[in-house]
């Protein structure tokens, strides 16, 4: 039997996927594949794991989330709206002239910790933030989400050395391990493989999960910190474009926008997924 929280979150993920596709369609731009890949991770973090909300966002002791793969901002915008950081209607302005809801996260948007979008920046910042918690004797944790293609930036490995050196067991690095970047499969672009071995060698306590499985994500984060004195790394095996059959695992969908027909099919697939949970169709 699934825990009730699991079902609530499963239904939220379906709603989030609807909303992600809706705002991308409306803006006629956005990072579809990576947002659908990451949204279950954001869902579990924001709704079950992290101590952060609009009420405590100014509180020094809040948990922090830094989305290093900034291009998947639509997933973050949708989850933060659901958390009440701003009205959902604000997302209607995505990518429009003068809107703060732009194609990458910025601190102009309530709930966002850091301005990202250039890959390879989130982890060093997260290391610094986690190090400050240690120095101040605070118990907050710092979560950061990286893409697997993003790992090609050397700054990630430089930051990893610092993370292990300072024993940052309050740092949680999540890799959205969907196997794809813009040009093609990550292995064929650069041959970056054996991530578990690499991260272990760099001093992380590593766990692997299905990053699109709500129960598995809940279970893995429940084990934090994985090992005292070591930074935590979750290799989250995901499917880029998860949840929509014709978007899943398709390199071309990195930043494609659905046509009207594709959008309708996608919504129908999400309705079917929702019906399987015994819930009526979404209202978003």
């Amino acid at each position: 039997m699934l825990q009730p929280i699991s079902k609530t979150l499963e239904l939220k993920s379906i709603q989030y996927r609807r909303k992600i596709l809706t705002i991308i369609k409306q803006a006629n731009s956005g990072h579809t594949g990576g947002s659908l890949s990451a949204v279950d991770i954001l869902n579990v973090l924001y709704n079950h794991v992290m101590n952060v909300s609009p009420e405590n966002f100014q509180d020094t002791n809040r948990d922090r989330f830094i989305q290093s793969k900034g291009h998947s901002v639509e997933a973050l915008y949708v989850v933060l709206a659901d958390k009440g950081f701003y009205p959902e209607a604000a997302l209607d302005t995505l990518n429009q002239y003068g809107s703060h809801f732009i194609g990458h996260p910025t601190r102009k948007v309530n709930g966002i910790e850091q301005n990202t979008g250039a890959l390879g920046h989130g982890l060093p910042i997260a290391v610094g933030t986690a190090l400050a918690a240690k120095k101040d004797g605070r118990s907050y944790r710092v979560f950061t989400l990286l893409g697997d293609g993003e790992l090609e930036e050397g700054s990630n490995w430089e930051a990893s050395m610092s993370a292990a050196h300072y024993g940052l067991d309050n740092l949680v690095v999540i890799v959205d391990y969907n196997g794809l970047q813009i040009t093609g499969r990550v292995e064929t672009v650069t041959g970056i493989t054996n991530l578990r071995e690499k991260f272990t060698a760099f001093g992380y306590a590593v766990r692997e999960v299905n990053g699109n499985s709500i129960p598995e994500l809940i279970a893995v984060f429940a084990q934090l910190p994985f090992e005292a004195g070591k930074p935590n790394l979750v290799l989250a095996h995901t499917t880029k474009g998860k949840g929509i059959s014709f978007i899943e695992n398709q390199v071309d969908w990195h930043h494609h926008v659905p046509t009207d027909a594709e959008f309708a099919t996608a919504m129908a697939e999400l309705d079917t997924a929702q019906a399987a949970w015994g819930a009526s169709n979404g209202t978003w």
Partner: protein
Amino acid sequence: MEPGKANLEVFAATLLRLAQADPDILVVTSDSRGSGKLTPFAKALPEQIVEIGIAEQNLVGVSAGLASAGKKVFAVSPACFLTARGLEQIKNDVAYSDNPVKVVGISAGVSYGALGTTHHSLHDLAVLQAINNIDIVVPADNFETQMVIETAVSHPRPLYIRFGKAAMPHLHAPDVHFEIGKAITLATGDDVTFIAIGETVPRAVQASHLLAAQGIAAGVMSMHTLKPLDETAVLHAARHSQAIITVEEHSVYGGLGSTVAALLMQNRLSLPFKIVGIPDEYTVTGSQNEIFAHYGITGEGLADTAQQLLAAPVKVGM
């Protein structure tokens, strides 16, 4: 002005044509072949494309090594990452070590308008101008783009080429001469001269048409080469017009405007002068067109600027 293609497309097509005839031409990319319209190149000449992955520092370093061994290397990546992330490699491995890499910054300026400041390159001309031994060319239209790519192959020094992805109108007569370091005059007029660079040039041309209708004669120059600057052309314009307006898709600090201003001052030329570019503030987002309109980089905006500049009394002293 006849409509043309995106300079990005002309770049990719020209490079493919040249590389088919010369196996020493290599393209080096950082998960950027799609953005660079280089997928056909990769299909046609798989041995002449080197993929580095999302690692712009490595992109520039590897390119320097390839160039040192005699390869004709085009290192292609969005200008924002290439010239910020890869800056130390450009400075030391390319410019200082004198490895003649052709550093190609695509989707430059605010081409990636709504993606925000991480994706804008409004700093690149400033930082690269301050580095010795790298020439800087910002083509305005398809012709200038094709010419700079053709010239680049045998250019003996490090070279930075920067352009956007919007369709650009044709600006030039077919017989016009292109040479790195020589400005191209598009219109002459002794009331005001626009010295413009890159994708802002057609907007200056539009402004000159609007001004002509009001009896104001405006000159327009495409200053495609920022470094080495065509000083003769700038000084000539300053001596033959009442006012100078520079126009660029870059910060108002450290780009074309600052460089022209410094040149004028040091030649004791004082005349009404305005730098039009992106001001030093949190940059507004939207499409490239919307951002240009926001900052007055349109035919109308530039014509207004010219009229205000010509109308304002010249202040001497305090």
